[in-house]
């Protein structure tokens, strides 16, 4: 097993601007031995670093079956700014993969509802890709649902892929607000009203959520009211990751280490802590 505390070199194969502040980077692990050992599942993340600047936890936005290893990064702090300035053929440091991803095996036989807000679409993209690959064969006649909310039309991530996603998923996109000059013909407003329009089959449904915590809290309440068991709601949490191996303590959420017990949690595991402020 390769060292998880020391980064290995990953070369930027290509970089693509998604929105004004977010880009996707395709990375290639330089060391052949590590590349062979490296496997991940949807929802896991890597620690990407620019030596001298620091390190940031970035979820993997491609599926395990896809070719290049994609990371969709929003410029927020020093590390993400530094990475955003790196061009193709340059190198970043990578450690990973880390964490527990989405429980793909639990989707089998249930109708899936994917709810993403903002950058939260990035760790859910591999889920959508996986299902697209496997087609309708997840044991239910229901079309899976994908609800995505972005700040504005120009903040929509993977905008050209939703048509493809729509081949399998019942896709609903909304933006918080749209300027008139953007000629947005889609929906405006928050995510919850969309949920009201969707028929859910209570215990037969499984939900994956990733986005701002306020949005997730609100949607989880809705889902519970609509009869989804807490055990069938999964959410991906964000905390301050430093070591990514459960030994530095930064990312604790109650007794959970978001880096190794998460970032994806079953709602029933974390519900008691989600009710406590500043846990």
């Amino acid at each position, binding site marked *: 097993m390769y060292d998880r505390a020391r980064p290995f070199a990953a070369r930027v194969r290509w970089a693509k601007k998604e929105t004004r502040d977010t880009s996707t980077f395709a990375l290639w692990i330089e060391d052949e031995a590590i590349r062979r050992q490296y496997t991940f599942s949807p929802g896991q993340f890597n620690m990407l670093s620019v030596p001298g600047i620091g390190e940031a936890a970035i979820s993997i936005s491609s599926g395990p079956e896809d070719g290049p290893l994609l990371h969709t990064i929003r410029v927020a702090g020093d590390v993400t700014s530094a990475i955003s300035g790196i061009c193709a053929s340059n190198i970043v440091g990578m450690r990973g993969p880390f964490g527990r991803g989405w429980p793909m095996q639990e989707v089998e036989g249930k109708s899936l509802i994917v709810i993403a807000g903002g950058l939260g679409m990035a760790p859910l993209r591999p889920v959508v890709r996986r299902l697209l690959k496997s087609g309708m064969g997840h044991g239910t006649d229901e079309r899976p649902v994908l609800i995505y909310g972005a700040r504005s039309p120009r903040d929509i991530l993977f905008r050209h892929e939703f048509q493809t996603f729509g081949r399998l998923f019942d896709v609903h996109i909304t933006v918080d607000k749209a300027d008139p000059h953007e000629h947005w013909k889609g929906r405006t407003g928050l995510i919850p009203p969309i949920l009201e329009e969707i028929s859910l089959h209570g215990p037969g449904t499984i939900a994956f959520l990733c986005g701002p915590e306020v949005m997730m809290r609100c949607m989880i309440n809705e889902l519970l009211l609509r009869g989804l068991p807490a055990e069938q709601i999964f959410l991906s949490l964000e905390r301050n990751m430093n070591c990514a191996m459960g030994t*530095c303590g*930064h990312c*604790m959420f109650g007794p959970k280490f978001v880096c190794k017990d998460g970032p994806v949690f079953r709602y029933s595991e974390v519900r008691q802590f989600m009710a406590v402020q500043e846990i």
Partner: protein
Amino acid sequence: MAIKGTLKKARLEDLLAVLGKSHRIIGPKAEGGAVVMEEIGYKDIPSGVRDLQWPGGCRLLPGKDSQVFSFSPGPDSFKRFLHPPASELFAFKRNGAKIDFLPAPKIAERPMAFFTVRPCDLSALKLYDKIFLGGPVADQAYESLRRGSLVVALNCLYPGDNCFCLSMGTGPEARDGFDIQMTELEDSFLLEEGSAKGAEILEQLSLGQAGADEISAKRRRIESCKAAFKKSIAAHELPGIIYANLGHPHWDDIARRDLECGNCTQVCPTCFCSTSYDYAALGGIAAGGAVSGKRFRKWDSCFSRSFARVHSGNFRLSRKARYRHWMAHKLAYTQAQFGLSGCVGCGRCITWCPAGIDITAELEALRHV
């Protein structure tokens, strides 16, 4: 048959001599009004030194006790040596499209023998092994220091005024996790093997016969120690009492007294939190853009304001939330994380808190207020 024997007090030096052949001896030493832990020789042992500890205070008493080990644990523990306050994780070099991450140089020093580890700290060490060695990939820095180390435990015969290991179920008697255990008797030490490595050490000493008298003397001394405890904690109600009271108003009361200086976390033998960061000095920056430097890991604390900070905000902005997180981690979360208590009852956080905040009293307040 496990090796057991007595070593005359006057020959204690022999034990250190044998340990010292293969190991650096890390043990107690009186310094600056406290008993600290350092690499020591026989003469450094603060024989007969007594101490007084109270919430927010510690004093070494004048005069000598007839016993060798009459002091309770000071601020240090094995933690300083196995999880050093600052260590280099790796070095990096970035030059244009080329980046190297070079492993930290191996520490060539001899392994350490921890001399007179108290039972509370044995429990903390067991927890540390789970944290740093029990994951899918072991922490290499910890592993390289822990491998080859020796643990010589010392049974406690006097509880310190802030000790509450008895109620925590971690002391005052060593049960496992040591290579040798020592019990101070009238004029000798009873030495008992705890592992094959410990037996090898004991075989090199000329030990006296340990018979029923010595065993019963040991029992008597430990029992009288148990009877002398002044402090206890409601361990039987843990972790439930914490989980049930995360919204208790008493946290606000603690926040008024809490200095959030982080001392409790630094002296706690189970607090393991750290921050890793890249450091490049001016000398590591070349005009052409090449950068070289190192990633260091330093002890940190959940009391640091920046600890739960992310770019978009801070998950624990209030002092109350930071204190609650620490206490909940000690008394509830660690149990859920590693199956062992995060509090071993050593009382260090009580003594070394300048505000004298007493974790046992705060738990009582949560139970009754």
